[in-house]
């Protein structure tokens, strides 16, 4: 005997809920996002180059100042070392204090320093 009110309707219709945006939309979205990202990377690379240029030039502008200060100190140490050498070698005949071992008038910084 059928139940009162009859049988339930037969479920034959497809049940396909919305599955989100289509493949084309996702692909397009990802492509657009990547394109924007690469655009930013490109801009950033150009900018990085300019930042590096700025940094390098800030250092170049400081070179004369720092070199001048260092030179004064180096000269002071040189003169002190020369005086010390004269004092130590004063009993050795024929010793020229501060004489280079090279036959070359070109300046060459000292190879060693005395740690006091």
């Amino acid at each position, binding site marked *: 005997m059928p139940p009162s009110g009859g049988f339930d309707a037969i479920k034959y219709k497809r049940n396909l809920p919305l599955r989100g945006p289509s493949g084309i939309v996702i692909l397009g979205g990802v492509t657009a996002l990547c394109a924007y990202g690469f655009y930013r990377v490109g801009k950033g690379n150009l900018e990085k180059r300019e930042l590096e240029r700025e940094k390098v*030039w800030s250092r170049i502008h400081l070179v004369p*100042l720092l070199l001048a200060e260092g030179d004064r100190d180096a000269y002071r140490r040189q003169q002190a070392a020369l005086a010390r050498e004269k004092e130590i070698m004063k009993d050795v005949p024929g010793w020229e204090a501060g004489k280079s071992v090279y036959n070359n008038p070109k300046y060459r910084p000292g190879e060693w320093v005395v740690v*006091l």
Partner: protein
Amino acid sequence: MSGRYHDPSEAAQPYSDPTPLPNNVPKVQELGATSAPLKSAAFFLGAYCKDYNEDFMLCKSENRDPEHCLKEGRRVTRCAIDLISKMRDSCAAEFEQHWSCLEKHNQEYYPCRTPERTLNKCMFEKFGLVKTIPGSPEGKTPIHEVRNPVFTGVQK
């Protein structure tokens, strides 16, 4: 003094020699600024002391001997002292803000654009000194004047 050779890089104390400069060399006060104020003032130093700096570097290219360019070096230092003391007189607050920002941000310029712009403005108004970066592409905004850069500090 001991007879053995000491490598200065392995010395327990820094290599220091208390002997002063010989008396025949005129004395000049050293600038004494640390790296952040120097970096903050670098482009103005380059602009303000251009002649002295170039003279010194030309002299150095003649001869690398420290003795050769002492005179030009003193001029460079005096010019730098002059500019820094002028900056401290006229743009003290802006200068201080910029270099302490540099100090805080690993001495990079790009996170410190705001204090830098106020300093640049003050320097231009007071001394007419403009920050220019040689060799930057023509027709484009120089990097220190870009309004909306890609690289900004992580923390504002």
